[in-house]
């Protein structure tokens, strides 16, 4: 189940991440983006450790450069011309906005990385089940069959090798034919034996009226608090975003925050740090109780 933020109710964590995505995607203000990027980065490091650093350098950074470069090459708005090639202006504004846009994407991807760590398959099935129980059941069954099918395809490969009819190298046509045969064996096996699954379902009353859907999640006051705060944060984010101008066309204009926006920003930062605060507090509680015992 997990502890800390991961142990919270799926609905709360989901709404939290929707907030972070929406906020990061919609804002273009460097300060707001900076907050989002910073919070996402440290939480991801907290969750996944060193791997985040390599993810950042091997995937996110090249992507950012690519986005910024693409934007610089294809967008020619703005008033500050840096240089000109064959009558096309390359502007400072498009360079800056390209950079802003790449930070935006990076922040979103970092949040997505945290999302994948926190909102696991079971939680997605649960959330899906709230909307459509039948599809959630289908997803759960699919997740049951996938490892089964993988094991079977291994069995089939070994069986073919054991009688020497596996074509695993050589001409493409031969390999393709061999692969098609394997797939054929696999499909027959899966579908024909699937009648047992269907019997097992009917034997346990599938198809009776009034099916409920079970979940092992309990919605606590804490979960409610996170949910409500995330909703408030979304609204606050929209508000700050519209009150603080950050425009890059035709020229770069960025508002400095006034006192009220500053307060809202602090609030937003606090919400985005909420997961890591929750986790750290929980860890401290554990270490204290360990010391006591």
């Amino acid at each position, binding site marked *: 189940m997990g502890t800390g933020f991961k142990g919270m109710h799926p609905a709360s964590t989901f709404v939290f991440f929707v907030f972070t995505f929406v906020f990061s995607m919609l804002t273009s203000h460097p300060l707001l983006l900076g907050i989002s990027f910073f919070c996402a980065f440290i939480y991801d490091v907290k969750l996944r450790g060193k791997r985040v650093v390599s993810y950042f350098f091997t995937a996110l950074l090249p992507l950012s450069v690519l986005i910024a470069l693409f934007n610089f090459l294809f967008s020619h708005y703005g008033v500050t011309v840096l240089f000109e090639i064959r009558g096309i202006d390359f502007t400072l504004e498009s360079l800056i906005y390209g950079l802003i846009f790449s930070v935006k994407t990076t922040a979103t991807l970092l949040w997505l990385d945290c999302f994948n760590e926190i909102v696991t398959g079971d939680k997605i099935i649960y959330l899906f089940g709230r909307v459509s129980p039948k599809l959630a059941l289908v997803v759960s069954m699919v997740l049951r069959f996938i490892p089964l099918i993988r094991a079977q395809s*291994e069995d089939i490969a070994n069986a073919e090798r054991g009688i020497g009819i596996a074509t695993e190298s050589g001409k493409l046509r031969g390999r393709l034919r061999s692969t098609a045969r394997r797939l054929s064996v696999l499909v027959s096996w899966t579908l024909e034996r*699937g009648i047992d699954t269907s019997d097992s379902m009917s034997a346990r009353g599938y198809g009776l009226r009034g099916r409920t859907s079970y979940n092992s999640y309990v919605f606590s006051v804490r979960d409610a608090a996170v949910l409500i705060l995330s909703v408030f944060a979304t609204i606050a984010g929209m508000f700050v975003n519209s009150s603080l101008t950050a425009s890059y066309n035709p020229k770069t204009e960025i508002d400095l925050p006034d006192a009220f926006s500053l307060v809202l920003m602090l609030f937003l930062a606090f919400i985005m740090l909420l997961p890591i605060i929750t986790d750290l507090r929980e860890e401290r509680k554990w270490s204290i109780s360990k010391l006591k015992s």
Partner: protein
Amino acid sequence: MQSKSARLTILSVLLFLVLAPLTLMLSAKYLDSRSYYIPAVIIILLSVIPFFVFFENRKIKSSEIVIVSMMIALAVASRAVFAFVPQFKPTCAIVIVTAIAFGPNVGFVTGSLSMLVSNLIFGQGMFTPFQMLGMGLVGFFCGLIFTKSRYRTDKLIVSITGALLCFGVYGLIADTCSVLMFVTDYTRESVMSIFASGIPYNAIHAVTTGIILFFINKPMTDKFTRLRVKYGVFEIEN
């Protein structure tokens, strides 16, 4: 029951017809940051809902739900079988044969869920909603074109149509996501250059899908026909 299902489906279609343009209008008016990813995702979700509502409310036997789940699982997991022909990804071909056998609605559900589950295993990405819609529509169109057609067993026609849909529908929709991720200034050349850069990848995907279809369409159709006779599954598709 049937009328309730029909009502809900119509309702969700209407919802889409009202809310999708509204989202577009609102984002055109208020989103000066040129980030259209979020409105796009909202529109995708709205468009997917009618299919899911229809599936949710139709009466479906346990054997049918098993078969749908198995085909989705095969679409995702049979990549293991294709280990010796790299570049060949069977997902799209399996979605297409399922759609041909069981009709547009099941086709859509198979396509979209196989992308969802595949991302569930390898981690969700920004592409997920786009892939779901794209693959779902490939399944939907194949079901629409072939389920009741006499060309369903024609190897060549099926594989060419499949390849075209894979290229035109799935490729286009998935690349739209790249456009939204890369482009900030929507000029013709910037958008086209993204789509153009996707062409080689999509072409390989489409051609390999066509080839796989050519090889598996017949045996798969035989197997489905047998299931239909033996267990009476998916007798009426509406």
